[in-house]
């Protein structure tokens, strides 16, 4: 509104034009139209068949056991193990530091596919039964003429190693090596003053880590962990190397091969992976909000907003 005063009034400036945006939009519309036309006119996509395949019982079972349970289990082991390995890595004890380094070196160095194949067939071949007892227990017992061989617990490896649990442990151990690096970065990102404040209050190193440092490190740890989780959803397809057949991709492809509906089966499995990934992205958003409390402008309680004019240092 123009004012009679000669002092400048409200600004009514024209925005900068963005012709590039319109060109990009036009190009994308054409490409999307081409894609949609191919969806409609090319029967080989077989979307209705894909939807049917998605709802087959073996596929759903594979989705539940292999993908969802597998992801949750492997990530639980991965996150807990990773934090432990990271804390060992930052320990004052040189032996523990070394253990942590070797762990990360080993599990980060071998492909998950190889690791799982090895767990599935290799370990059972090497150790048909795993005995938990005193080292050289059998030899000791025969030396002492005892009937006991100092074995407390025996595990049938061949039976165990082809189970879903073995696959989850394999993926989890591998994941822990990656999570350790993420957790270490998170722990190191916390200001040194936080540790000093905790120490000055008389907290020991464990308390300071658990109560003060880790909760703040979570802010840095959560976003890449979300990434790792989504990657893990996809890596559960490697469980078929064990071999575990209650697994999403294995089941879907089996149906596709049997019914000669190869492409629809790929569409079906893609749709499932995208769906699970989307749900995880929503979950990640809420987790980031939770662990970001007390930081930045997203502060939860607006009633205590900083008084006007009082600048914080």
């Amino acid at each position: 509104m123009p004012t009679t005063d000669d002092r400048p009034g409200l600004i009514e400036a024209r925005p900068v034009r963005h012709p590039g945006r319109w060109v990009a939009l036009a190009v994308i519309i054409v490409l999307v139209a081409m894609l949609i036309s191919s969806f409609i006119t090319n029967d080989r996509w077989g979307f209705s068949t894909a939807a049917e395949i998605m709802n087959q019982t073996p596929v759903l079972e594979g989705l539940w056991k292999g993908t969802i349970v597998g992801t949750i289990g492997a990530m639980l082991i991965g996150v807990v193990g990773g934090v432990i390995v990271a804390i060992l890595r930052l320990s004052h004890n040189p032996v523990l530091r070394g253990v942590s380094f070797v762990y990360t070196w080993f599990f980060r160095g071998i492909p998950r596919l190889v690791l799982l194949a090895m767990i599935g067939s290799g370990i059972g071949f090497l150790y048909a039964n795993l005995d938990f007892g005193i080292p050289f227990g059998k030899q000791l017992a025969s030396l002492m003429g005892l009937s006991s061989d100092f074995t407390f617990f025996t595990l049938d490896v061949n039976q165990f190693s082809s189970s879903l649990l073995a696959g989850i442990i394999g993926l989890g151990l591998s994941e822990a090596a990656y999570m350790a690096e993420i957790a270490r970065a998170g722990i190191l990102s916390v200001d040194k003053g936080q540790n000093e404040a905790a120490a000055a209050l008389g907290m020991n190193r464990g308390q300071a880590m658990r109560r003060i440092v880790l909760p703040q490190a979570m802010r840095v740890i959560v976003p890449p962990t979300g990434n790792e989780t989504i990657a893990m959803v996809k890596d559960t397809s490697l469980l078929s190397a064990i071999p575990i057949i209650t697994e999403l991709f294995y089941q879907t492809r089996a149906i596709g091969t049997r019914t000669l509906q190869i492409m629809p089966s790929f569409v079906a499995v893609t749709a499932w992976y995208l769906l699970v990934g989307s749900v995880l992205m929503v979950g990640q958003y809420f987790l980031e909000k939770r662990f970001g409390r007390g930081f930045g402008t997203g502060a939860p309680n607006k009633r205590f907003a900083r008084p006007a004019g009082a600048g914080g240092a």
Partner: protein
Amino acid sequence: MSDTTTSEPTSEPTTGPDARSRTGEDRPLVRALNVLKSFHGNEVLKGIDLDVHRGEVVCLLGPSGSGKTTFLRCINQLEQIDGGRIWVDGDLVGFRDDGGQLYHLTDKQVAAQRRDIGMVFQRFNLFPHMTALENVMEAPVQVRGTGKKQAKARALELLEQVGLGDKPNAYPAQLSGGQQQRVAIARALAMDPKLMLFDEPTSALDPELVGEVLRVMRELADQGMTMIVVTHEMGFARDVADHVVFMDGGVVVEEGKPKDVISNPQHERTKAFLKRMRSEHDEAAADAESLETPKP
């Protein structure tokens, strides 16, 4: 420097040179003898001696890099000393003295020694993921094992005392610098310390927020708290301190009653430092005056 040799074997290992004044009420709460500290070959403390008695407020003054903050951090073992001895309330800090042979304390023992010493940092170091109330409750609950209910009541009392009774649920990011520092003081007080260390508590604050923090510290001094304060606030040192220590280059240059050291310094280095501080202060005052002068 005291003529007590630090290697002198004592019959009472934990008390050291304090033994002779043990029966007296005047045993200092903090005694530092010939404290030495280097960082990577760079000598920061070159033999500091200091006695702080119960209820006393001691201000450490001096230019930056003079070692005053390092010395303060040595008292509660955020830095480990290389030489000399520090005793707090008769306990040798950081070591166990067994017939003249020193043994490092375990992490647990170090933590136990820090429990009774409160510390306030230049950068506040509040726990950002906890509210003001949770910050103050944290140490009593986790370290002393105080019940939550009791700790909460005490924390609210302390927040009231520092003038923040209305903001228990605010996160540090929602508080001004002065408010954060007052929460930090309440947090340290929650452990009922017998000694409070202040490391330039107002240096990170906007000028208009300095007063509220100094006021809380002044009240604390009036209540008889033993305090060691590293500060550049000459007014506070002059009005509140019982004893001021001027440090430069890792040594104590001059110490005594505030009115003697600040108003009538003997040493050239003290004079130069105080002159510099005064001119800065005058400039600031002049600025303030010119702002307050009404415009024509």
